[in-house]
């Protein structure tokens, strides 16, 4: 499966393997991680909520668009959900191409589209309370 919403850790070797072929000369990977700071607050953990069916469908649409837009060999989008600690992986995008240029372009475009379009929402548990993140906005819950 090239587009997945999953609870477990990524198997990055498996991901790389699944977009590799003898034609591939360059692979570009974006790996997102939970970091300890957001909007100036100390983050304790993240909780990702998703509209699961639509999230996977939207990732598939983004993947197909990327395959048309860039002369890449393949591309994969995996996103985690549930509760994640600092340092844990959140998203994995792996783009493979004959040459590096198209793999870089496709990987970068795809992460931007995912962040704009895929129905997944971040709840940040910080030392100043818990917040919903909506686009660039942070909205206090408790």
């Amino acid at each position, binding site marked *: 499966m090239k587009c997945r919403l999953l609870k477990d850790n990524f198997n990055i070797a498996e991901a790389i393997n699944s977009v590799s072929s003898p034609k591939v000369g360059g692979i570009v990977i974006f790996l997102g991680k939970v970091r300890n700071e957001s909007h100036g607050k100390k983050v304790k953990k993240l909780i990702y909520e998703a*509209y699961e069916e639509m999230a996977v469908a939207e990732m598939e649409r983004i993947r197909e668009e990327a395959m048309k837009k860039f002369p890449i060999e393949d591309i994969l989008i995996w996103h985690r959900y549930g509760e994640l600690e600092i340092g844990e992986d959140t998203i994995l995008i792996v783009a493979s191409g004959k040459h590096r240029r198209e793999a870089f372009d496709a990987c970068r475009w795809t*992460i931007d589209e995912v962040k704009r379009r895929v*129905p997944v*929402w971040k709840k940040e548990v910080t030392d100043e309370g818990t917040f919903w993140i*909506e686009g660039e906005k942070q909205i206090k*819950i408790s």
Partner: protein
Amino acid sequence: MIMKVKVRYFARFRSIVGVREEEFEVPEGIRVKELLDILKERRPELKNEVFAQDEDADVNVSKNGRYVSFDDHLSDGDVVALFPPVSGG
């Protein structure tokens, strides 16, 4: 004629409404924006949060798992979801 559509709420909108999904009976063939007008009445708690309906509207609407325009028509059995700007990645 009457048709049934399901409305789903996600993230903060779900907390506001307190339910995941509810079914509404609405006039056949209405547009998304007409459904939103109906929701404004039946779910007044969403009025300020969700239904600005202008270009800056902080609400996303999908139909059957796909982003949809406010002018789109609805059919019997459609699933409409309302959710805030996304923040994955």
